[in-house]
């Protein structure tokens, strides 16, 4: 496979910037503010969001483990391509779990700056799907340098971790653990 020119790296970067900016602007508009939202079997929407994003971070940690196995940093059985499949599906599930959370955050709560934690959370929330789209562009294309994929994956993991630290962990620490 012929490696692409370095200029091709601008494509995932532009995708990242465009998606992040669009989400940030949409969140700023708070298009669905005041509308009711589902909460499944949880006591309220916030608890549902906390546990969905916690499940997503657990899956992201399993992504870290499987990536370490794929890249040869950890060795555990079985050999073969099992971990590639687990890595792919845990990633897809993690992103799917964030969707109802993101919808509530973007369209109902909106972009806020009333405290440092909320400001950081809003910025990271705007960036997560940009990072995801950037990674998908790299995964689905060929010829990018080998370091591009771990860089995109690492960015996505860090953003998701930052989101969890600034929301779910803060909530569980301050309000206690509950469903």
């Amino acid at each position, binding site marked *: 496979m012929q490696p692409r020119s370095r200029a091709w790296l601008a494509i995932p970067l532009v995708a990242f910037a465009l998606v992040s900016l669009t989400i940030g602007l949409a969140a700023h508009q708070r298009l669905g503010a005041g509308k009711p939202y589902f909460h499944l079997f949880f006591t309220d929407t916030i608890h549902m969001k906390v546990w969905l994003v916690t499940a997503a971070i657990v899956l992201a940690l399993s992504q*870290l483990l499987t*990536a*370490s196995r794929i*890249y*040869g*940093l*950890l060795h555990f059985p079985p050999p073969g391509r099992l971990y590639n499949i687990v890595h792919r599906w845990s990633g897809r599930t993690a992103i799917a779990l964030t969707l109802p959370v993101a919808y509530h955050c973007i369209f109902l709560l909106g972009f806020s700056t009333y405290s440092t934690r909320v400001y950081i959370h809003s910025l990271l929330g705007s960036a997560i799907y940009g990072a995801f789209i950037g990674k998908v562009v790299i995964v689905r294309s060929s010829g990018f*340098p*080998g*370091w591009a*994929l*771990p*860089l995109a*994956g*690492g*960015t996505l*993991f*860090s953003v998701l*971790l*930052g989101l969890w*630290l600034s929301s779910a*962990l803060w909530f*569980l*620490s301050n309000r*206690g*653990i509950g469903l």
Partner: protein
Amino acid sequence: MATYYVVCAGAAATLVGLLFVAVQIGPPLSGVGPVRRRHAMARSTFTIFAIIFALSLYSLTPFNNPGGRALVALAAAGTGTVRAVLTWIPVWRDKLQGRIEFRLWQTAWLLVGPLLAYGYLAFGAFRQLGSTDPSLLDNTAAGVFILLFVIGLRNSWNLLVEGTQETTKPS
């Protein structure tokens, strides 16, 4: 301390991501000779960042208590020690059998440095188990994390530089 642990968890997660980038630059992590030394350095560095990340995250969880944290820190120190030794055994075997050449002290430090940090962490955890002061382990962890970050960053930098040199060598 919560802010410190948040920063440590975030930094460790980011550095693990960058470690994947560093191992992708240069020859793949397998085989014998200097590559195996590079492999050992990458695995050892991964353990370092993983331990900082896991301990920081556990310390941030709302349900932990000083005794439980001390036990988790002991387990982390034990795991780190075992993994460091197991990681470096093949490299030292190759060195002692004359199959590879490297600077002795430089490579010894790659094993000794993390072992010192894990030892100090275990010491802090033992002290915490016998004390009611919850800040004992926090103070030890603060120093240990800084030491581990220094070692991890130095290793990552070396991996990056060695990888770049390997890829730019004329064939």
